[in-house]
């Protein structure tokens, strides 16, 4: 059975002249089929929000001096923290894949006189940037340079 939707959903400003049965949410929302993927996509919002603050704290401590930063690094070695970061990585990759799949069609056929490249090329560009940036960051952070 589908859940109830907002009682006013798709109701005209002046309600119709006869009594109606209240609207229901789409079948399968939120837990089934494609809805599950979509809800998961939104739920990654929590991961991102937390990641924002986690990184904020890390950078704050980095600015506070060596002891602060080492504290951060110690905390990161905690298995719970590692677990969360793994989850976050999965979430981030999932977001990227879903979003880059949708991204090309969200581009207007024209912005002023400029036409964006065809979907396939656009997608290729996105993935190149994503993979490229990740490689560079990994290389730099993991000690490959400087």
């Amino acid at each position, binding site marked *: 059975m589908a859940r109830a939707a907002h009682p006013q959903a798709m109701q005209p400003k002046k309600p119709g002249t006869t009594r109606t049965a209240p609207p229901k949410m789409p079948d399968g929302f939120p837990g089934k089929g494609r809805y599950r993927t979509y*809800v998961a*996509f*939104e739920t990654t919002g929590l991961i*991102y*929000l937390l*990641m924002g603050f986690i990184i*904020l704290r890390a950078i704050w401590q*980095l600015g506070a001096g060596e002891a602060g930063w080492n504290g951060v690094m110690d905390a990161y070695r905690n298995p719970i923290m590692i677990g969360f*970061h793994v989850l976050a990585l999965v979430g*981030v990759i999932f977001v990227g894949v879903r979003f880059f799949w949708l991204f090309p069609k969200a581009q207007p056929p024209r912005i002023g006189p400029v036409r964006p490249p065809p979907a396939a090329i656009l997608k290729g560009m996105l993935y190149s940037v994503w993979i490229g940036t990740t490689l560079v960051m990994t290389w730099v952070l993991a000690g490959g340079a400087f």
Partner: protein
Amino acid sequence: MKQLLIVLEPVIWFMFGQGIMIGTILLTGWLIVVGVGVPMGIFPADALAYERMHMLGSNVIGRVVLLGLIVLPLWKGAHHLRSLAVDFGGGDRDAIVGSLLYLIAIVGSLLGIVAVIRL
């Protein structure tokens, strides 16, 4: 409040969009090294030693990247959680929930700016 949200909607959406795109692109590398690789010993720990990190982070590019890593995910997070709240029947509370979430993102972003300036 609701009115203000409506007026700011395009900017919020812009921040969200950048969060989902650039945020994701930046987070992937960060998580691979800082979140998982080094703590699990896959990469050498001294790659993230204080001296080196400070050097990497305190130049202009470093500061911009770090600021992006803090601010962008916050907006993607706040906005998506707001949508999630609506999808679970929060249409009527949307203005309050939304404002709260964005307030969190704003505070986080301001602190983020301070944090990178302090480096």
